[in-house]
């Protein structure tokens, strides 16, 4: 039987779309306030719009095309029909999963954005952690002309491309999720009791804690109720700075338990932290065959499954970005959603979020995208220009979470850099992103 949804592939999702507002300083300011982005490039004379704000210009706003701005979004009948058919199939919930943006030119106040969008694909039914559903991918081409300077729409030039993937799904019952988890091969659990509960409490809070003897000052790991150096039972827990070195390692070939088969053979390392204690962990981010004694590593946290997050290590280097921690407040979620003109109820209305299977409101992908952009430009500085961001969302970010962004330069080509960014909550990776930027002086573009 042919999948009737395949017929939507290649059909337009939006035709002749026109941004409701021209690029303007107030919306930029509201967006920067919500994201906590103080980049000087976005204010004052010669300001540009934050590239990661791209999608905000094309959002339909409250009512999504049914209000005063009706028709301006250009959404096609085909796209409305597709969403309606998915709703009718029971896939009534929606969540954005991927956002890939390429920025060709900076947007500036006074420009009007025009866009056309195509349905790139509708996936077969997939079973996901959220439930059964279909992924819908659209591709949007954005153009802009300088309306304030009297340019005509025909003069619009390409400014960006935007691929966006959503999951339309039927929320899975909680029990079903748990049953599915029980069938998966899980890693052996940590063994936790009163003597080491503080360590695992630290992990839950994103810290790797070792003990230090109050009497003789000796740092110790693993956790024990007393000091081997002096016998004292007085101690304090200290968070490790996160820097360490591989002291020894093995590569496990046989037997490989089911939980590790996806990455077999796998390396297990003995890491010596800069504070002088050692712990067994995994070194991720490079092939097992490349782990070496003496390799500098940096602490990270890996979410292995719904119940298990482990402190792990990744190769350290001068290309590591300093981590950035952002408390996920209700205000951040709501302000980010509204500043990006995303009025989906799950981002601001707790009761409606519950009704759609979520435990609370959660951050919208436009905010996640904006925070990723902010993280990289905070590091690269105002002269850097973002040329692309690809974000894949993992676990949702809810009020009370803390997002910790880490990043590393994975590619350099002259002034062009590629940065891998991960934003984690205590439940795992919320956003996994690749950011491209150029360190070119902005004046080159201004002069052209």
């Amino acid at each position, binding site marked *: 039987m042919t999948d009737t949804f395949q017929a939507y592939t290649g059909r337009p999702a939006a035709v002749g779309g026109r941004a409701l507002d021209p690029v303007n300083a107030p919306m930029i300011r509201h967006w920067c306030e919500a994201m906590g982005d103080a980049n000087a490039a976005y204010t004052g004379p010669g300001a540009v719009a934050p590239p990661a704000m791209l999608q905000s210009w094309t959002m339909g706003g409250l009512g999504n095309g049914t209000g005063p701005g009706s028709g301006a979004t250009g959404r096609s009948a085909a796209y409305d029909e597709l969403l309606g058919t998915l709703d009718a199939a029971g896939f009534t919930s929606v969540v954005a999963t991927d956002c890939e943006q390429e920025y060709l030119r900076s947007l500036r106040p006074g420009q009007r954005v025009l866009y056309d969008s195509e349905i790139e694909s509708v996936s077969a039914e997939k079973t996901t952690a959220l439930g059964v559903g279909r992924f819908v991918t659209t591709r949007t081409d954005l153009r802009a002309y300088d309306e304030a300077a009297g340019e005509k729409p025909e003069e619009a030039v390409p400014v960006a491309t935007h691929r966006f993937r959503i999951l339309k799904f039927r929320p899975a019952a909680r029990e079903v999720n748990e049953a599915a988890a029980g069938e998966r091969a899980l*890693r*052996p*659990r*940590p*063994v*936790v*009791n009163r*003597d*080491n509960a503080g360590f695992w409490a630290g992990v839950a809070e994103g810290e790797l804690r070792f003990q230090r003897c109050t009497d003789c000052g000796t740092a110790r*790991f*693993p*956790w024990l109720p007393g000091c*081997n150096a002096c016998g004292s039972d007085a101690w304090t827990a200290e968070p490790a700075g996160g820097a360490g070195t591989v*002291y*020894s*390692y*093995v*590569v*496990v*070939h*046989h*037997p490989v*338990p089911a*939980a*590790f088969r996806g990455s077999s*053979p*796998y390396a*297990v390392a*003995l890491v010596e932290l800069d504070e002088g*204690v*050692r*712990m*067994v*962990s*995994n070194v991720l981010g490079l092939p097992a065959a490349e782990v070496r*004694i003496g390799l500098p590593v940096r602490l990270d946290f890996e979410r*292995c499954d719904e119940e*298990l997050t*482990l402190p792990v290590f990744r190769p350290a280097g001068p290309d590591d970005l300093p981590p950035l921690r952002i408390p996920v407040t209700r205000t951040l979620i709501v302000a980010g959603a509204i500043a990006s003109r995303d009025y989906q109820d799950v981002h601001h209305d707790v009761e409606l979020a519950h009704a759609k299977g979520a435990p609370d409101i959660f951050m919208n992908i436009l905010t996640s995208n904006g925070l990723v952009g902010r993280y990289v430009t905070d590091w690269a500085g105002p002269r850097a220009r973002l040329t692309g961001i690809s974000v894949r969302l993992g676990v949702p970010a809810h009020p009370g979470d803390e997002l910790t962004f880490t990043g590393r330069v994975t590619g350099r080509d002259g002034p062009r850099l590629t940065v891998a960014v991960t934003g984690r909550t205590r439940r795992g990776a919320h956003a996994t992103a690749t950011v491209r930027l150029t360190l070119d002086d902005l004046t080159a573009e201004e002069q052209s």
Partner: protein
Amino acid sequence: MSLHRADTLGGRAAVAGIGATEFSKDSGRSELKLAVEAVHAALDDAGLRPQDVDGLVTFTMDTNPEITVAQAAGIGELSFFSRIHYGGGAACATVQQAALAVATGIAEVVVCYRAFNERSQHRFGTGLMSRQASAEGVAMGWTMPYGLLTPASWVALHAQRYLHSYGLTPDAFAPVAVADRFHAATNPAAYFYRRPITLADHAASRWIVEPLRLLDCCQETDGGQALVVTTPERARDLRHTPVVIAAAAQGAGRNQEAMTSFYRDGLTGLPEMGVVARQLWRTSGLTPADIDTAVLYDHFTPFVLMQLEEFGFCGPGEGADFAAGGRLQLGWDGAGGLPVNTHGGQLGEAYLHGMNGIAEAVRQLRGTAVNQVPGAQRVLVTAGTGVPTSGLVLGRE
């Protein structure tokens, strides 16, 4: 105070009997049955009867309680029973326990035993998947979630650092495997009877946990082994030449863990075996040069090199050179060298948690080993490595 002073146990007990089942991959019978068979075989070898036994010692890991073995073996009242912890590290300590009991008159005839279906039932090599939240469980719990689950992986983490520290490659371990299999090849009781290997075979064998290859790992086994310990006086009246316990020692190092002592010192040695070595040399009054052959615990090859160093047969980092070129094999006629694991060891004969190695030492001193070291007078035996452990110096009267 035996960490600092010679003890007085030396010469006050003797091994009078040894007995084992066959070594196989599937015994086809219970672990209790294997234990009883081994105990009977050892008593027969000594020329004693079950009713002569008043003490039993085994490992905490053994599933056969002393009382149940006594029940099923026709043994009556017991005045001494004891079990030693820490896996294979218990092997020589069972004999030490028996000697302590015999020397003090607590018991007169003590049988030490170990029996398991370690191949056909619970293979250690399949790895841990969970542990209780006890202190021991918590200690293992630091490594389990990361996939460090098997004895091979725990040993390999030490071995990698050892190789790195001394600028060696995994080929450094090959002479140990080759020597074991060389001896097993002429031992009809051995798993690998008539199946010697070469250095090239070792280098070509598959990785288990780098830097350990298949041929660095022992042969998991079903079987049972027992030893009869009594006073030298009584032993003289029995069937075989008495084998005297010249020294017996246990050892645990500072910051010791059971197999996961990764958090101390440089990981290039076995500090707990150093504790054993110092006591054995002090109590026996011997030096490495006095040892005719050694049975060094070999569940994995790297720790054999470290034991050679801890006992002073060579200096730190010199184990690989000491072992190379056939120097651990019977018949080496160059300078240096020491015949090691003449039964084939746990790589070649069988993995009986070290107890079969004690039996081999007894055969060497009786002059009845299949790979006999001519005129052997003094034999060193060690127990499990990487764990709190034990050792013996056995000799002729």
